[in-house]
């Protein structure tokens, strides 16, 4: 039954996305423009700059691609709640036989699937164009992806819970996204940051996601470094995910009690 529900959510999202034609077209075009931007940025910086031993353009593509994938995934949780509050479907959805947390997870996974496709095309074409000889460890990349996804789901549930309770989930997400943009090694290596900020950066799961993925793509033989990143991600996900599920369920129950489910 859960697969039928997942298929229904996926179908609804695909149909909605395709029928907003201009938005769908822009989604296809913007990654190509971004690739071109990073190519010229890396050319301006010069070929001598090779962060973590890889061409700067590839560093940028992997960093921004994975960052966008994770943040867009987290945002999709918030978006699901916001959209259903604004379209008036939230109360109806909560009278169906599907538990709210399941429904939110299915909606977000559907969005993750779309973002994953975009991410694979974006990073894949970036690597093919600018570093075709690279030796990727697919299993290590998949492990980083899965653990990062679990962390992103946890943050998404926190953001959705805050949207249900204080209607300001987007502010928290903006703060998280900005911190990650600055400190997680998206545009430049973490080593370029001052020491205290580097400490904060290590507390951000995004930092380990980006570092882990870059190792899986460019230094797959460095298993000690890869294991360290996977260990950190495992720790983050096993702490954050149960807390997030509890928090979201609590905020929904509280909103049912207060009658504020559809407020936004």
């Amino acid at each position: 039954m859960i697969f039928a529900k997942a298929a229904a959510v996926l179908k609804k999202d695909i149909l909605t996305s395709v029928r907003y034609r201009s938005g769908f077209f822009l989604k296809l075009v913007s990654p190509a423009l971004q690739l071109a931007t990073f190519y010229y940025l890396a050319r301006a910086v010069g070929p001598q700059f090779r962060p973590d031993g890889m061409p700067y353009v590839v560093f940028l593509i992997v960093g921004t691609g994975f960052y966008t994938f994770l943040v867009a995934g987290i945002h999709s949780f918030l978006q699901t709640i916001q959209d259903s509050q604004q379209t008036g479907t939230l109360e109806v959805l909560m009278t169906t036989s599907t538990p709210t947390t399941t429904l939110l997870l299915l909606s977000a996974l559907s969005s993750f699937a779309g973002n994953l496709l975009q991410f694979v095309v974006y990073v894949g074409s970036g690597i093919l164009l600018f570093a075709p000889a690279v030796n990727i460890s697919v299993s290590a990349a998949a492990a980083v992806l899965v653990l990062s996804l679990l962390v992103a789901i946890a943050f998404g549930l926190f953001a959705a819970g805050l949207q249900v309770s204080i209607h300001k989930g987007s502010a928290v997400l903006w703060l998280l996204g900005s911190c990650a943009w600055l400190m997680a090694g998206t545009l430049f290596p973490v080593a370029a940051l001052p020491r205290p900020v580097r400490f904060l950066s290590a507390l951000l799961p995004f930092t380990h996601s980006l570092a882990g993925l870059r190792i899986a793509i460019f230094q797959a033989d460095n298993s000690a470094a890869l294991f360290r990143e996977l260990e950190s991600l495992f720790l983050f996900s096993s702490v954050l995910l149960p807390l997030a599920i509890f928090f979201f369920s609590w905020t929904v129950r509280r909103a049912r009690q207060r009658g504020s489910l559809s407020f936004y």
Partner: protein
Amino acid sequence: MNTVALESVSKIFQQRAFFSRTVREETHALKDVSLELAQSEVVGLLGPNGSGKSTTLKLVSTVLLPDRGRVTIEKFDTRLHGPAVRKRVGFALASERSFFPRLTARENLEFFAALDDVHRSDCHDRVESALNHVGLCDAAEKQVMKLSSGMHQRLGIARALLKKPSVLLLDEPSRSLDLAAAAQLWDLIRDLATIGMSILIATHNFAEAAEVCDRVAVLQKGSLIATSRTRHLSDRQLREFYLTLIGEQDLIAWNEEVPA
């Protein structure tokens, strides 16, 4: 046996900051309300705006939880057995904005059917039957954003019927409907009651209450002030009964609907 039972139910809406215990404002939406619905019974909730009609429906559907008292559906407590209650209750909201506007009427119903555990092999027939019940077969392939208000209303009822509920909640079901569509809806409500469904209707329409309800319950400022059988009552008699109850006899002569 009662299908729905509200036992001394109170609902208070409090306004306060997220982690604060200080209450800024308090609204008593329902005060100590007790009401039962038997199987196949149609009960109408009458009352001015803000009297607690929609709150009552939301409490039965688990969208809201009671602060005091309890609400049970076939013995399942809404506070303790939310999923079991939701399997048994279909809710047609008064709001038009409760569909995915870019999807067609059929696609919307198929989506909600999947969430309501309707098996894929039954889905087509259930959707077709629900559309047929509310007379929307011709509009099934139209995007919801292109439907009229009355069609939205009927689609909401079709959605509530998808899970074959034992309790149907209708919030102002004939609002936005023309006379022919309203008459068709009233026939449908009577048919559904005949096959065993218990139906609770929040309405401002005396003709509707007199036509389809077995009983009416009158709410005022969150309190249930009277219940009455409607058999042999015309809509005019019902209106007089209601206006006398709420102390608005002056309006009897000219007002056709429940005054706000």
